[in-house]
């Protein structure tokens, strides 16, 4: 069995973002980078399937040279090899283009199961996985919080609104997009980090995979307008607490 997990490198969401010179994306300098949180659950699930079945597991990541750092984490978590689709323009591509790169790479590889995160933390479109499945002609199930594999069938739990879950079945080959809470992503151990350094990391130029033309254009990136009206309290915690209590007495009935 052959498995593929697709990951993305994103900035830490606690970062202080600045808008880039073109005004259409965030400034990529001076940011701390990490694996997209949703993808950590995808990698963990893929590694669990590999451990249970002896399957071969490839991790794929699209982006500039720096994404290799994030790929090393996936390799240390247990992926067998990495495929780096080298692309300095990945942050400007729309989800359909990214999906077209994944599909172009995966098209003739015969993967039985493809895992992705349900969305990225920076763009949050939630489109790439499903679009890649459509381009590959595979069934896809989104937002999974439960996963079981038996023979060539997967039974997964989809997370719906209000805590309701749906149980869904599909036959391999298939693609699933992973939601937070699907499993507990492992921390790479030091020996596994060392081993990961020796694992194969192939590079493919994005241009060689002929990405599709963009369907979506970003006109501008802005900071949301603060709705205002909110009072900021800062300084000594004792004073902050006193001021907060005064406000609660004035503005709410909960301390009455």
């Amino acid at each position: 069995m052959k498995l593929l997990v697709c990951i993305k490198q994103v900035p830490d969401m606690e970062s202080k973002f600045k808008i880039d010179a073109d005004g259409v994306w965030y400034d990529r300098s001076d940011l701390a980078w990490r694996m997209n949180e949703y993808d950590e659950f995808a990698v963990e699930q893929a590694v669990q399937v590999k451990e249970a079945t002896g399957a071969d597991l490839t991790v794929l990541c699209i982006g500039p040279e720096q994404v290799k750092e994030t790929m090393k984490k996936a390799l240390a978590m247990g992926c067998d090899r990495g495929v780096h689709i080298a692309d300095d323009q990945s942050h400007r591509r729309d989800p359909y283009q990214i999906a077209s790169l994944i599909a172009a790479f995966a098209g003739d590889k015969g993967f039985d199961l493809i895992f992705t995160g349900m969305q990225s933390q920076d763009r949050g479109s939630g489109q790439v996985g499903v679009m890649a499945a459509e381009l590959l002609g595979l069934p896809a199930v989104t937002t999974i919080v439960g996963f079981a594999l038996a023979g060539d069938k997967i039974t997964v739990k989809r997370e719906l609104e209000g805590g309701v879950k749906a149980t869904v079945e599909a036959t391999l080959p298939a693609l699933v997009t992973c939601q937070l809470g699907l499993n507990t992503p492992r921390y790479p151990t030091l020996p596994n980090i060392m081993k990961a350094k020796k694992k194969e990391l192939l590079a493919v130029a994005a241009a060689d995979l002929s990405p599709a033309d963009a369907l979506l254009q970003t006109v501008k990136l802005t900071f949301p307008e603060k709705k205002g009206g909110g009072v900021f309290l800062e300084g000594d915690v004792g004073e902050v607490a006193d001021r907060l209590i005064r406000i609660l007495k004035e503005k709410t009935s909960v301390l009455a």
Partner: protein
Amino acid sequence: MKMLLVAEYRQKKLLESYTELLAFAGQFGADCAMFLVGDGAAELPKFAGKLYLADVATFGEYNPDAHKRLLLDVVAQEQPEMIVLSHSSYGWDLAPRLAAGLKAAQVSEVVAVDDGRLVVPACNAKLRRTVSGTGAVTVATLQAGAFSLAEAAAGSPEVIAVTGEGQGRVALLGYEAAEHGGVDLTKSEVIVSAGRGVGKPDNIPLVANLAKALGGEYGASRPVVDAQWVEHNRQVGTTGLTVAPKLYVACGISGAVQHLAGMKKSEFVVAINTDRDAPIGDVADVFAVADLKQLLPVLTEKLQAL
């Protein structure tokens, strides 16, 4: 502008969210048709226009292959410039299939319309992108609660039955109800919630003690529940509870849209966070820029002394 609105039917019920699609279309003065896989004998969307209706008994509530094919047929007939869904577990699953099938741009989780262009959040709502499709048709999903009708929806649709191949490669086996039992946060007048900023499970009692001092209950955001620091029945947000207490205190919660959707109707919101740019500030009446580990014990003690 011609729009096709995709309504939802789940667990044998028409979802009210179709009214949000109508509110969005209203901003464009669009000429609308609607699509629904539902039950013609049950409640239908209140809407004066064409309703393309496929029978849920044949096509299922979740059968993305079949729903996509039905929709592509309707799109071919109606030739809409925009296809609009809710950004929901149904919408975000179906929309990319349609977009890929039509080779159309998809715009996910629209929160606003700016001069005819669509605005979506980025980076946990810290930023906003204004986008536009490059082709003749765009598929859009709308953030829950971002658009609402000023008046109740009215009218009865002209039903056009649609049918086709019902087979799909993904089969819905059934639903699992939400875990309840124990506390019911929706009935609490005060909720103090813990977010990722609490740092470790040992700090949950700080939040619980403040809740107690305020005569309320404690809740949590999703990451805290996923980490199993707090039980699921206390989770506030899209995938948990929607609450509207008199006072909501968000401790170490950045304010991801999924969380805001679950608590933004609270009467009074206090945010306690070290990051004064955290999006929770958008809904906070008071924002205490402080480390909750320092502020909470002091605040709790002062409240107990009242």
